[in-house]
């Protein structure tokens, strides 16, 4: 093994001692036993044994890697990926226009970011998604569970209960018209109580708790393998007032984004983040743009911006690698997130679909 000693994940002090004693490659290290090593560089026998074990383990995994069997790195061909993508489900939002522009709904293994002005409906959509991810498979859902990380305190259980009740009623209506056995069976487990029990709620009061929670998330997800949606409601709030050091903030946010991407991929779940809007002051005017800066814009794969047009709420798909930019209107009803009903005058099926308004790429909405 020609691997350089300095590249092993050893403690820095230990590394310095090894290099000082003249060890340069792993091969030299593997020839020697722990007692000799401890005498030569002046460390305890236990430490020497630990060092050798680390080196041996790394070399072994290196060897398996070079023989072409991937251990931690998953590689596949584009064909396999295509099959996976086609088989993968989406989390519907109950607003068919929004689902259409998203290509079916909120995608798994991707980070979707929702930006918007206050009061426009970001948390409402998150609560709707936390319920929708649990819809049984026979109704077109994923039968998964949801993790809700709340930093702003806007999660109201009563509202989620209302949304869940409406969703259950909707499924019951479908079951009645179809009269199939498995529909009735899945309805037994799909009740208000079960929906609420499968939303795992974490309240993080500042960015330290958020960092800690995201760090522990993989372990939690291994224990709760049915989770298919992680929502962080308010990724901006804890980072906007406590941190004066902007470079630290960028670094922490990037780290967070990387961890979330790896979680989304490893556990095949969707990550949904909500962001605030901030005022950017230009020469002659001020605009509302998504908060957390330009560099954060790269973190999310898919970006939705919710905004107002007079009295109508609109959703714009601002960034997506596979769908084109478009805007659709939506409503928040007592039952949750819904379409705007098409006007009753439209008769032909082609007209029933709400025309997404195409807009050029937005730099920011002037509110």
């Amino acid at each position, binding site marked *: 093994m020609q691997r350089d000693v300095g590249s092993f*994940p*050893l403690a820095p002090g230990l590394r310095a001692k090894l290099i000082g004693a003249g060890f340069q490659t792993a091969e030299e290290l593997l020839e020697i036993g722990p007692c000799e090593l401890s005498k030569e560089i002046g460390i305890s026998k236990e430490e020497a044994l630990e060092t050798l074990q680390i080196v041996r383990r790394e070399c072994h995994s290196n060897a398996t890697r070079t023989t072409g069997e991937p251990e931690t790195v998953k590689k596949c061909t584009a064909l396999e990926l295509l099959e996976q993508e086609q088989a993968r489900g989406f989390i519907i939002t109950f607003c068919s226009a929004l689902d259409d522009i998203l290509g079916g709904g909120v995608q798994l293994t991707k980070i979707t970011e929702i930006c918007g002005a206050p009061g426009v409906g970001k948390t409402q959509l998150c609560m709707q998604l936390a319920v929708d991810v649990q819809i049984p498979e026979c109704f077109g859902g994923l039968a998964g569970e949801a993790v809700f990380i709340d930093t702003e305190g806007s999660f109201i259980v009563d509202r*989620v209960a209302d949304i869940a009740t409406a969703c259950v009623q909707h499924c019951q209506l479908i079951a009645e018209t179809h009269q199939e056995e498995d529909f009735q069976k899945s309805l037994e487990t799909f009740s208000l*109580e079960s929906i609420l029990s499968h939303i795992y709620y*974490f309240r993080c*009061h500042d960015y*330290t708790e958020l960092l*800690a929670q995201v*760090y522990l998330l993989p372990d939690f997800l291994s224990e709760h393998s049915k989770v298919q949606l992680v929502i962080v409601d308010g990724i901006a709030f804890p980072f906007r007032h406590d941190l004066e050091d902007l470079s630290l903030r960028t670094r922490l946010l990037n780290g967070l984004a990387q961890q979330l991407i790896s979680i989304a991929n490893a556990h095949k779940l969707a990550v949904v983040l909500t962001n605030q809007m901030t*005022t950017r002051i230009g020469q002659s005017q001020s605009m509302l743009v998504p908060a957390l800066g330009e560099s954060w814009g790269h973190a999310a794969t898919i970006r939705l911006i919710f905004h107002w047009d007079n009295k109508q709420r609109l959703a714009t798909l601002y960034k997506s690698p596979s769908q084109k930019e478009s805007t659709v209107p939506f409503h928040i009803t007592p039952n949750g997130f819904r379409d705007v009903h098409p006007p009753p005058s439209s008769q032909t099926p082609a007209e029933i679909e709400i025309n997404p308004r195409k807009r050029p790429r937005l730099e920011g909405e002037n509110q």
Partner: protein
Amino acid sequence: MQQLSGRPLSETDQSLPRMLLGGSSCCGEVGDFEKVVRCGSMATKKLRRAGLSQELCDRLSRHQITTCRDFLCLSLLELMKVTGQSYQNVQKLLCKVSLACAPKMQTAYEMKMKRAINPSSAFLSTTLHGLDKALHGGVACGSLTEVTGPPGCGKTQFCLMMSVLATLPISMGGLHGAVIYIDTESAFGAERLVEIAGHRFPNYFVTEEKLFSMTRNIHLYPELTCDCVLKRIETLEEEIISKKVKLVIIDSIASVVRKEFDMKLQGNLLERSNFLARGASLLKYLAEEFSIPVILTNQITTRLNNGLDVQANIVSPADDLCLFEVSGASGSKDQELGYVTAALGNTWSHSVNTRLILQYHDLHTKQVLVAKSPVAPFAAFFYTIENSGLVLQDGKDHPDASWEGCSPILQAIRVRTSILKDGFPSATADTVKLEPPI
């Protein structure tokens, strides 16, 4: 008036306009928003108590890393350097420290059960029936409710009314607890408080003793600077426990902020946002921890139509008239230069959970709008201010009783159009109308 022990009653808080470098504060220390948040944060938990060995803690403190927050902010390589441990050990340490600060998990079902066991602890009824119904019970516990509107609309009256309601026993719809009232405008009137109580609940407040015990439960804190308000909020945790407080009111958060932060100076926008966000974060923690409602009052500002709303914060209400007259003189009244909306900006609107807007309707009636709420749709109700406080006008036939709301930060607010209450019913050329055409 109650105050913290040790502070003389006659101490006046001198507040100077905040300048970018330094600023005076009431207690003689340099105003410092960098102070570590005292209440509610796991971030400042010392590493020793997170389960790390003493030796490791000593080593880390030599690098100025003493709290969980410092530890979690470092990258893996930096951690390896300062702890002198291998990669895997560092990951184990990260896990340990994270476990010490991460929040506990609850399922939504458990949260619902908790609320179901104690339904009275979920809302404080405002006794305005229509409003209560729209808000699913009243002012929500555990979240921030903002009441905003032009001067004289009834914000302080609303706060006084809620103070009385919070002290009532649970059987009457109250919270049977004390109230902390942070007053920044010296608008609190004890006599008016007693008048509201006596007229609204004549059957309950029959004896003077009952009135006195109610007033004894309302703790008033006059604060005149941002620093003082923030310090007061930081000490609230202990006060809430010792005095069994069930409602916190800040009347008004806007006046201290606008007095001190001069928007003309560079960097003040950021500092103001920081102050507001920090205050909101602390108050949210208190609201959730003790499951109590927090009511804040806000003021109004002019938002100019061509997007110059930042500059508009410089404009005081008096200047609003001048601005409008300039455009009004140019001819058409329809071409509005701007309109009046809630103050303190966009970030603050994110921080409050519920926003109620009070606005003028006509000479005698006013309107309360539910502009932002996680549980309620847009709703509007008419009310008047009487001896007993706010009274909803139920059943009155008004043409625009239905109201389609829009963005809570852009919602236009109607201000008072005539100075004289007994003035001419039709608008004359002297009166200035600032409301947008309906």
